[in-house]
């Protein structure tokens, strides 16, 4: 399997290098769908310039990345292009290995269940075979590397690529069962953009499952593990925050990075839901709706955790999707990360109901973004409502996609316990209806 992966990496890097050298690179770097006020490379350069002048990079209202990023690029600014390609490659390889490991476990678990005769007899066709699972990791890497969204993001040098790499490494270390590294990468991801905080829950669920600790609130071992994990997580967060403080010598970055993410002062249009809403709103409702919008990201953790507590990896996927839809400055790079997981759930395809609709809408929206932007900003004939309508449609399609996968996953689990061909009480064939 190493050869196709290597080939894939070479192809992906070639595409990126070619695009980087074409005149398109500049155009892409300006697109609001690809870069947000936080991740824009232009702003990182500005921050670096300020840093070189001995001024705090956070003075002024341009730079909003974290101190670690700016110190990383302080050394790597000449190799930025390679750094971003490397980040993409790391993400892809990490996802590849993670999914491979995960598939192995899924298969083992399935084998035990089969041996224990736990599945109903008519569920044969739902059982996953090694043959169909063989290419999944490669497909995951391909979905990430060859996704136009990722390519655009990488060519634009959006720091989103680095965040994705950290999150992918977190997924890898979690699935490998390494508690300490998992906590450290999670803390790095949180440090970068706050929202991955919600990934804490699936990580703990997974690691407990890995170590055969029952998820039971009355058990001491449960609380002991939670305490351990949180200690590692918060400890490394503390270390990293302090490190940032010592690097910069001030706490400037806290309001400028996290305040910026949470209070959404920059209303540059993007593919998210915030900008239009907050641009239109009366000022005195702002705080209230800010809370409502931000809670949206965190709130789904609880019901999803309860429903998916036996399937933490699927929960990670769901959480990533929720984050990328509801975060305050989303870019297509965030979308690309969770889309990369889709091949891992290819066994759910038979239960998906709206994939045609969703893929059509996503495709159309991707084409319409630049068109409506042109009409609004350059031609001046359309206005922001046109663009926001497409944003809204894009997000509805994403939500539909995610909920469809959620439904399909639960449906498959249901069939695995109750049998594939459900019967009503009178013996006629029944259908499942989601209400």
């Amino acid at each position: 399997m190493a050869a196709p992966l290597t080939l894939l990496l070479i192809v992906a890097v070639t595409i990126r290098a070619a695009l980087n050298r074409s005149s398109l690179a500049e155009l892409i770097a300006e697109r609001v769908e690809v870069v947000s006020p936080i991740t824009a490379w232009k702003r990182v350069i500005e921050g670096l310039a300020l840093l070189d002048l001995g001024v705090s990079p956070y003075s002024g209202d341009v730079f909003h990345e974290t101190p670690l990023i700016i110190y990383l690029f302080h050394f790597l600014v000449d190799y930025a292009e390679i750094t971003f390609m490397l980040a993409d490659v790391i993400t892809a390889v990490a996802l590849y290995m993670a999914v491979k490991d995960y598939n192995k476990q899924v298969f083992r678990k399935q084998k035990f269940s089969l041996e224990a005769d736990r599945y109903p007899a008519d569920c044969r066709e739902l059982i996953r075979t090694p043959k169909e699972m063989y290419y999944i990791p490669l497909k995951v890497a391909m979905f990430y590397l060859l996704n136009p969204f990722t390519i655009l993001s990488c060519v634009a040098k959006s720091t989103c690529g680095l965040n994705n790499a950290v999150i992918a490494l977190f997924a890898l270390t979690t699935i490998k069962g390494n508690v300490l590294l998992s906590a450290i990468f999670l803390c790095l991801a949180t440090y970068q953009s706050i929202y991955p905080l919600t990934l804490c829950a699936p990580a703990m669920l997974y690691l407990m499952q890995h170590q055969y600790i029952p998820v039971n609130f009355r058990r001491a071992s449960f609380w002991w593990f939670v305490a351990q994990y949180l200690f590692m997580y918060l400890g490394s967060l503390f270390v990293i925050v302090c490190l940032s403080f010592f690097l910069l010598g001030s706490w400037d970055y806290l309001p400028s990075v996290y305040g910026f993410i949470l209070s959404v002062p920059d209303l540059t249009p993007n593919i998210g839901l915030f900008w239009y809403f907050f641009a239109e709103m009366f000022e005195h409702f702002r705080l209230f709706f800010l809370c409502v919008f931000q809670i949206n990201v965190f709130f789904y953790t609880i019901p999803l955790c309860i429903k998916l507590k036996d399937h933490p990896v699927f929960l990670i996927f769901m959480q990533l999707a929720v984050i990328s839809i509801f975060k305050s400055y989303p870019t297509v790079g965030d979308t690309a990360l969770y889309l990369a997981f889709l091949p891992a759930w290819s066994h759910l395809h038979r239960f998906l109901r709206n994939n045609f609709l969703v893929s059509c809408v996503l495709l159309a929206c991707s084409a319409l973004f630049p068109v409506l932007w042109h009409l609004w900003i350059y031609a001046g004939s359309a206005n922001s409502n046109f663009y926001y309508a497409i944003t809204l449609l894009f997000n509805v399609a994403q939500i539909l996609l995610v909920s469809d996968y959620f439904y399909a996953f639960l449906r498959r689990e249901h069939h695995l316990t109750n049998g594939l061909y459900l019967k009503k009480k009178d013996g006629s064939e029944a259908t499942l209806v989601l209400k």
Partner: protein
Amino acid sequence: MGLLSDPNRRRALISLLTRLNAPICVLCYFAGVCWFMGLAFEPFTLRTYMSENAMGSTMVEERFPSGERALATGREFAAHKKKVGGMPVDWLVKTMQARGLEVFTQSFSRTLPFPDENKERYIVKGTNVYGILRAPRAPRTEALVLSAPCSPGDNNNQAVGLLLGLAHYFRSQIFWAKDIIFLVNEHDLIGMQAWLESYHHTNTTGMDWSPLQGRGGSIQAALSLELSSDVITSFDIVLEGLNGQLPNLDLANLFYAFCQKIGVLCTIQGKLQRNDWDSVSGYSHAVQTMMLMVMKQASGRPWGDHGLFLRYHIEAATVKGINSFRQYKTDVTTVGRLLEGIFRKLNNLLERLHQSYFFYLMPSLSHFVSIGYYMPAFGLLAVILLLRALDLWVQFANPPAVTVDGVADIERQSSPGVLSVLTPLVISHLTGAALYFLPTRFQETAVEHFPVSETEAVVLTAIAVYTAGLALPHNTHRLLSGEGTEQGWRVLKLVAVLYLAVLLGCTALINFSLGFILALTLVPVAAFVTPHVPKTLSAVILVVLSPACTLLFSVFFFQELQEMPVSFQDGWLLYLSVISQGMLDHYLYGSLVYPLIALMVYPCWLLFWNILFWK
């Protein structure tokens, strides 16, 4: 959510859509065409009205007195133009300075990618002269432009004369709150392009020009004047700009309002408006006017010197004085008063024109159709593509036993390789790229080996590449991936149909007319093509409905609309010149129609051609 989550209702809906697919598609097509034709019917249109408050209720008086003097200046200009054999720069500078303007000149040069045979130019060198009247009443942050072209021959001398006369008169008024720039541009659009690029510090087409020495504020609106006779019978307004962009409707309203006030006949597309909308001839007159607008907009070229302003978010129009055989004539003083009135109203603007519509079609100058009314016509055509795609998807996802709910799903047929879909896609796009790049690259080679001029070489190469594309792709994909499977063409068609839908949708948003005309011809192709229809007949239909033939028909149709029908021979020559003009528009001004057709629409059409010859 009921429809999306309830499997029974979904199944009912989808089986309905697949069972009645063909009739629904036919119905949609005719409904779309009928809707479009209905747009010109007056009860379905809206009356134009002034939306901008600053221009609506305020009264202005027009007092421009010196039409005769303007004509005399025009004659003087003509004499100097003849003497110099081009733009009389020194004389213009002197005259403008004498009228109290700040005068600047700008020189520019441009080598065309290939000679323009219509206007007989290849290496263009010229000078623009412009004078700025500084606003006495406001900080000079905004400006208006009045331009007149310096045309070869005896054209537009009166326009320059009137421009100078107006400059003289405006100078003595104290109410100007915006700078007024009087621009005399040489080589029509090329000069205008040079001036605008320099004014806005951009260079999109690689033209050489000297930087502007003086600037006004940001330009709010511009009028371009064309006037070639001492008296006129009517005034024509031209709105269509680059890539089918239109100025804000309020500009047309303003023009119309002043023509009414002063009592000058005004036309759009050279057509007077008529009051007998309920008669057949009245309706056909309105249809003719609207179709002319649609054809002009679809061509994507600027139809007057104003066309390039629109790119910079400046509302602009060209006003043409027409002298025909009508009895009632209007003298230049009245024309001057009309322009004065328009400029005074524009001067009152507090913000850019934005209140009224930007997307509209005009069946007459007093009526318009807005985007909300004309988009359904396109939508009805586009929905056919989606219905076909849905049909294909259902066939593909659930072979014979149709189940939407996954339960009874039988084993899938082996899905076709990515290669069998990717190869035609790549090949047809490469052909498209060849169509885009080859004609200009190989003109020298072609001229060396064939007895043709450069322009002919370019056009004929384009036609040759286009025709060669028909032979190429469907032969190669079979070599690469073996015999095409049943599933293979279905997937390819699904991809092609969705591609076409997205492509046409985006085109229609930017340039409705182009999108609609393309949809009119390409949608039937996309809907009916399968490998199982009779080959020869379908191939003929496909060629007839291909983009190039659409263009050919459009040329004849346009001539017909203008009441200047041409013989087939002349039509063919016109067709060739239209192709070369289209390419020149792209290389000179950045019109997008040629690259759109070559790089996207043509490859998309080739995919359908491919499907026809799948086996």
